[in-house]
């Protein structure tokens, strides 16, 4: 093991890791916006609003993210649009993540017992009041967990934007391996960054979940 090399490449990979972090965070936020929109669309009374949402989710979940990314970046030429790599990557991850997040949010809302809705409505609360005061607080715990899992998936998915030459962690790793022919050393440092990010997020989500459930029942 060439520890010297590992030492040398760390700053370079640290910079790249930062790009991974920023693109993941921005994509997560975009994903949330998309997800909330989709959830609202799916609960519409009008089929013409529900269906596009369902189709979108079905298509995104039924096709590989990698292919979606390639369509975003290379496919724009058919429309005369040329997206910059970072933007294309961000959009692709966010739109993909949003579909999965919407299912996670829906799942947690559905998981709340039906009787809760009935009791609240029987008292005379409106749908909105019921959602805000009764359903959401109970669904939030589950949501925190599912969204956390998806956040981790986004971090791993961000590695694919290296293919369209976004200078993030995996891209930089591949470049260094190609020039130094030391795959194990590079993998070790790279993996370390990913592990810190991913298990960092997992620990944070667990902590958040515990805090939240404790807050709910004092």
């Amino acid at each position, binding site marked *: 093991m060439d520890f010297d090399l590992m030492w040398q490449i760390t700053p370079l990979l640290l910079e790249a890791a930062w790009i991974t972090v920023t693109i993941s965070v921005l994509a997560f936020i975009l994903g949330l916006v998309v997800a909330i929109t989709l959830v609202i669309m799916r609960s519409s009374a009008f089929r013409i609003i529900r269906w596009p949402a369902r189709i979108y989710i079905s298509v995104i979940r039924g*096709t*590989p993210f*990698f292919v*979606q990314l*390639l*369509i975003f970046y*290379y496919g724009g030429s058919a429309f005369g649009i040329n997206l910059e790599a970072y933007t294309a990557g961000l959009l692709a991850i966010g739109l993909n993540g949003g579909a999965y997040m919407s299912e996670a949010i829906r799942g947690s809302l559905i998981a709340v017992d039906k009787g809760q809705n009935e009791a609240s409505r029987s008292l005379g609360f409106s749908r909105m009041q019921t959602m805000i005061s009764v359903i959401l607080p109970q669904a939030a715990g589950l949501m925190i967990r599912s969204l956390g899992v998806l956040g981790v998936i986004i971090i791993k998915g961000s590695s694919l934007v290296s293919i369209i030459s976004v200078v993030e962690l*995996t891209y930089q790793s591949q470049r260094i391996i190609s020039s130094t022919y030391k795959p*194990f050393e590079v993998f070790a440092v790279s993996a370390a960054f990913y*592990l810190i990010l991913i298990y960092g997020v997992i620990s944070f989500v667990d902590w958040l979940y515990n805090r939240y459930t404790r807050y709910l029942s004092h």
Partner: protein
Amino acid sequence: MNFDFTPVWENIPTLLTGTGYTLLIALFAAIISLVGGLAVSLTTLYGKKIFSYPLRFFIWLFMGTPLLLQLYLLYFGLGQVGILIPALLTGILGLGIHYMAYNADIFRATILSIEKGQTEAARSLGFGRMQTLWFFIVPQAIFRALPQLGNNMIIMLKDTSVLSVIGVTELVLNAQFEIANTFRPFEFYISVAVIYYFLNLILETSLNLFEKKLEGRR
């Protein structure tokens, strides 16, 4: 807007060949990941510490890093130690090992969820440790893990697309050959997405039917 799908129609054979390879890769990777996953999980739970600790590290490491990075490690690493194997094999191995970690994690969780009550029942009947494991715990764990394992296989089928990066012949790579000749990335990638969508649909439906059938037999 500038569409022309004729190059796609003209090159359907290439796409079909690619699809064939995709399915082949997925099949072998699935077998490796399922059998290997079970073996790894059993070793981590019941094997000697000298084996179980490294394997637990393996699971943790491979669940906490992106597939692409692992593929680079395998691809460049094998070359480094002088082992030369065709890209196809590298791809199958890389995908198989990646999902082996995930499946092992699932098996661990399901085995642990069954253990106590069943073990007590079997042992009080007079079965030995190994027999209890083999005849009671493992079959039930496999049954209980099926939905999650099925889910993983669906995800894995889509992940075969990533193998194109290390030059493995499959659907995406073949499409890219043709794109290089015809300069129609959008049309080809959309067609690739459509093919994946249907493969995914078929796989999901088959798994659902399979699960329902098993439920019936209980």
